[in-house]
């Protein structure tokens, strides 16, 4: 009975159900989704390796030795020296681990040859970070010594 009355009223007044057109919105939303999926690039996780760069001292003698300082020399072609002794990265890791077990505050002086690769320096810094050595200084060898 009530339904019939409602229909009659609707027919009289000409009311229609108001519907929102969804199709354009869905189109836009899909366009946005496709845009984001296509432009999305996975981000590499970037790490930081802290070093201390001493200021160049014009009065410093190049051959001056500081007691108990560990010196790592980075040479050309991914070659390394630990306290003036040729070594490999895996052997150096063992030695650095022993040093770190005594004191993680031990100063490590990393001397890089000018012709050495930045990759080699980062490999040494990563090794120091691995064994827990934090007090790292980076200096550059004079060209004559670094070329050996």
């Amino acid at each position, binding site marked *: 009975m009530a339904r019939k009355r409602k229909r009659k009223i609707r027919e009289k007044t000409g009311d229609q159900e108001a519907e929102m057109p*969804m199709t354009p*919105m*869905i189109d836009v*939303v*899909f366009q*946005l*989704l496709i845009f*984001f*999926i296509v432009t*999305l*690039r*996975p*981000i*590499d*996780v*970037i*790490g*930081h*390796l*802290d*070093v*201390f*760069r*001493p*200021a*160049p001292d014009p009065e410093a003698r190049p051959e001056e030795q500081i007691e108990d300082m560990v010196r790592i020399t*980075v040479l050309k072609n*991914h070659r390394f020296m630990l306290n003036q002794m040729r070594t490999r990265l895996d052997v150096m890791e063992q030695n650095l681990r022993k040093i770190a077990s005594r004191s993680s505050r031990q100063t490590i002086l990393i001397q*890089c*040859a*000018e*012709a*050495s*690769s*930045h*990759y*080699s*320096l*980062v*490999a040494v*810094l*990563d*090794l120091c*970070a*691995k064994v827990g050595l934090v007090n790292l200084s*980076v200096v*550059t060898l004079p060209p004559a010594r670094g070329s050996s």
Partner: protein
Amino acid sequence: MARKRKKQYEAEINMTPMIDVVFQLIIFFIVTVNLDQESILEAITLPVAPYSREEPRKDPRQITVQVDRRGRYYIGSAPYDLRGLNMVLKNTVRRAGANIPILIRGDVHATHKYIRRAMDACARVGLYRIKFAAMKHAATEHRGGGR
């Protein structure tokens, strides 16, 4: 004659859950998009250092000096020669002090002499705390500067 009454149903797909999911996806993509990536040069491949320290919060004062394999220097995406780099660093120290963190993004194939020049430029104006950027985890296998 018996007449069968046929019931007719209009087949309609319920769009509401799909629209919900699509909106959720769009919000996810908008939130996770990294706008800071614009200042990073694509040409520079970072060396891999899996034990490097991950910094959860970036210091807003940090200056990133990028060094490509040919020894060209960039701050942001703007190229600088050594004199320009010195000027920028000097002005920054004058304005904000020498306690600014410096991040050097050196290419995996760059020789140390190019990195040294950038470090010397920093040390000359009193910036001694230097960080090297390295790739802790590569997002995709083909990127990554490991040998």
